[in-house]
């Protein structure tokens, strides 16, 4: 059962001048970074992460999670107005969002996007709030062997599921992420490794510097190759009130899409880039036959489905992070970085002594969705076009300087600057040749958890590997993870088999 006392305590904590401005600031940054093609939540969170050092753990993580949520909505602005999604989370939004702009109804489309994002996000956040006690009761069943299995499978699954063309590439990238973090002092035993006697490497590489290098420097090198934005004039028109009415009339699509987003968000590697397509496809599939042809030509229900689902993804993707410290996406990897940077350990603690932190984070998102609704209906329809036109010639120098100074602020260690450069270049090459950057980052973030829990498990079992298969929870994890990893392949195989048997008939 949900603990009303803890919820009220969390609500009282966030409705204070110490916390509330960080929600608003995070949402505002999120909307802006989401709206500018080429930035997005991950880059926004990465460059803000080192700036959170002077903040408290709650302030810092509320700021980060608000950027994450705000960017989901923000990415729809450029998709609707410019036909270029701010991030992949809004790729399905442009299918019907931009045709509405072409019809002279951008305000109408933006109002649908704001209401669907806020309501889809809000409903799934409420569901997450109700699920916290259930998650808490599951988490206590997990010991060191199960956490090791989940972390290991997390890396493998992201390597496999989010691999772009080759699962060997994905898995190798993920494991390389773990390997680079073995430099320096071992978290599981009193030993210092691979430093060559250098004191600068004694504490190893900083995963935050790796995150910033891969997501900020690598992304800026990549952005440099992209063409400069155009200055197409957007015809102003459409009714905001009609947009709200359209979302309200399509409440079934909105709620269903929100939950599709939530479920897909909880699967490592899938995330909002997949959920918006699944929700969109579901909307098309369930539409009456005569209506199906209107999708892709400005059907407002397409915008409702895509936008409700990508904001629903936020609630789903928080579940594995809060419960097990396993991020399922790049944005949640940065969020986990924020947890660890501020000494917050995911897992049972967040459901027990730190329960009010967990509820505060969730309630902050709920308030953030109200902010999306207000800003999305009152400001974005009037200034959205200006936000999306922030030029790469401004973004690149500013982000590079912010990322560099921010990384140096972590430990005032020049190793972090070298890390930034090396991993920025590695990320650029990985992007060029379809290697999963997310898998590598998640490998780096999870390395510590993996090593500590493997060492504990082997100590418990006197070195026997049977500890990983000798209880029902471990076996269940192995079965579920294996099914999740092979299910896309099985589905593809089943579909091709069905198609060929149909052809024969």
């Amino acid at each position, binding site marked *: 059962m949900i603990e009303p006392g803890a919820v009220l305590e969390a609500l009282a904590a966030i409705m204070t001048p110490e916390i509330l401005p960080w929600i608003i600031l995070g949402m505002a940054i999120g909307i802006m970074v989401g709206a500018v093609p080429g930035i997005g939540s991950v880059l926004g969170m990465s460059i803000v992460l080192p700036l959170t*050092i002077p903040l408290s753990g709650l302030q810092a993580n509320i700021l980060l999670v608000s950027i994450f949520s705000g960017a989901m909505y923000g990415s729809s602005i450029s998709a609707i107005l410019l036909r*270029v*999604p701010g991030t992949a989370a809004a*790729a*399905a939004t442009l*299918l019907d969002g931009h045709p509405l702009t072409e019809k002279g109804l951008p305000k109408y489309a933006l109002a649908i996007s704001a209401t669907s994002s806020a309501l889809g996000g809000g409903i799934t956040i409420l569901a997450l709030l109700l699920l916290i006690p259930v998650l808490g009761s599951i988490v206590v069943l997990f010991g060191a062997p199960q956490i090791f299995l989940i972390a290991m499978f997390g890396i493998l699954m992201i390597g496999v*599921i989010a*691999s*772009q063309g*080759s699962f*060997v*590439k*994905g898995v*190798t990238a993920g*494991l*390389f992420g*773990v*390997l680079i973090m*073995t430099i320096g002092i*071992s978290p*599981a*035993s009193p030993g210092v*490794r*691979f430093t060559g006697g250098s004191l600068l490497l004694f504490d190893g590489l900083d995963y935050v510097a790796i995150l910033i290098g891969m997501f900020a*420097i690598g992304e800026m*090198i*990549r952005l*440099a*190759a992209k*063409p*400069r934005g*155009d200055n197409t004039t957007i015809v102003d028109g459409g009714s905001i009130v009609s947009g709200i009415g359209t979302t309200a009339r399509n409440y079934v699509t909105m709620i269903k899409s929100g939950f599709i987003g939530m479920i897909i968000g909880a*699967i490592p590697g899938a995330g909002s880039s*997949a959920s918006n*397509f*699944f929700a*969109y*496809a579901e909307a098309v599939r369930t539409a009456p036959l005569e209506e199906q042809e209107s999708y892709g030509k400005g059907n407002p229900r397409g915008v409702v489905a895509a936008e409700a689902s990508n904001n629903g993804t936020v609630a789903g993707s928080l579940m594995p992070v809060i419960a097990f410290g396993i991020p399922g996406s790049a944005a949640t990897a940065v969020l986990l970085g924020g947890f660890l940077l501020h000494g917050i350990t995911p897992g049972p603690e967040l459901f027990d002594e730190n329960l009010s932190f967990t509820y505060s984070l969730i309630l902050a998102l709920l308030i953030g969705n109200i902010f999306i609704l207000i800003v999305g209906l009152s400001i974005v329809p009037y200034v959205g076009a200006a936000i999306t036109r922030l030029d790469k*010639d401004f973004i*690149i*120098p*500013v982000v590079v*300087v912010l990322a*560099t*100074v921010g990384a*140096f*602020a972590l430990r*005032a260690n020049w190793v972090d*600057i070298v890390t930034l*450069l090396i991993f920025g*270049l*590695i990320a*650029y*090459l*990985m992007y*060029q*040749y379809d*290697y999963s950057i997310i898998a590598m980052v998640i490998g780096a973030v999870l390395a510590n958890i993996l090593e500590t829990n493997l060492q504990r498990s082997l100590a418990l079992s006197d070195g026997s590997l049977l500890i990983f298969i000798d209880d029902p929870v471990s076996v269940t994890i192995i079965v579920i993870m294996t099914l999740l*990893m092979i299910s896309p392949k099985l*589905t593809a195989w089943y579909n091709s088999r069905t198609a060929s048997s149909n052809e024969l008939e």
Partner: protein
Amino acid sequence: MSVISQSRPLGLDIGEFVLLGTFWSFSAGIFIWSFSYPGFTGMFPRIFAVAVLIGSTLLLVRNHLPEFAQKLITTSSNIQDLSEEVGEGEVAESLEKAEEETEFKLDEPDRPLSDTEFVSAAVVGYFTLSYLVGMLWASPVFGLAYAIWYGKSWQYTVIILIVTFAIPYAFYDVLNLQIVDGYLHEQLGLA
């Protein structure tokens, strides 16, 4: 870039060869070095080094393997493949079209380096200069170099100079971050 990409070691682009070479040599080094550490301290990195070695070796030599092995290595099991069936193809087409349209609007002057090469080189230069003279002074120089390279207006140049100085200054002021001096200051006794 075009001159470099003509050489294809092991049938791979030079960039991918460098990437996989980095994976391979790093994991091989860690594997050998791990034997210097006793017990679990050496065992954990050794396990992962072996796994990365196997993966990177397979990827490096994939073009010289039998067809079935190549297929196994390059096959994806991507959940997003499913989304292609539900419309991603349409979006990809739409995005490509949008990019093509934007590219048509480009009228960039010829420069000796591509944008990617310039930004990479500028970042390396910025980091080096930061080490030599301090990040507080190197940051606006980086902003200025960027503005000059792309022939930006003086208004843009002034704004970018102010912003790229204000960011490190804020860190210096708020966090007392030691970014005012660099290696040269130390050597010249100015620190």
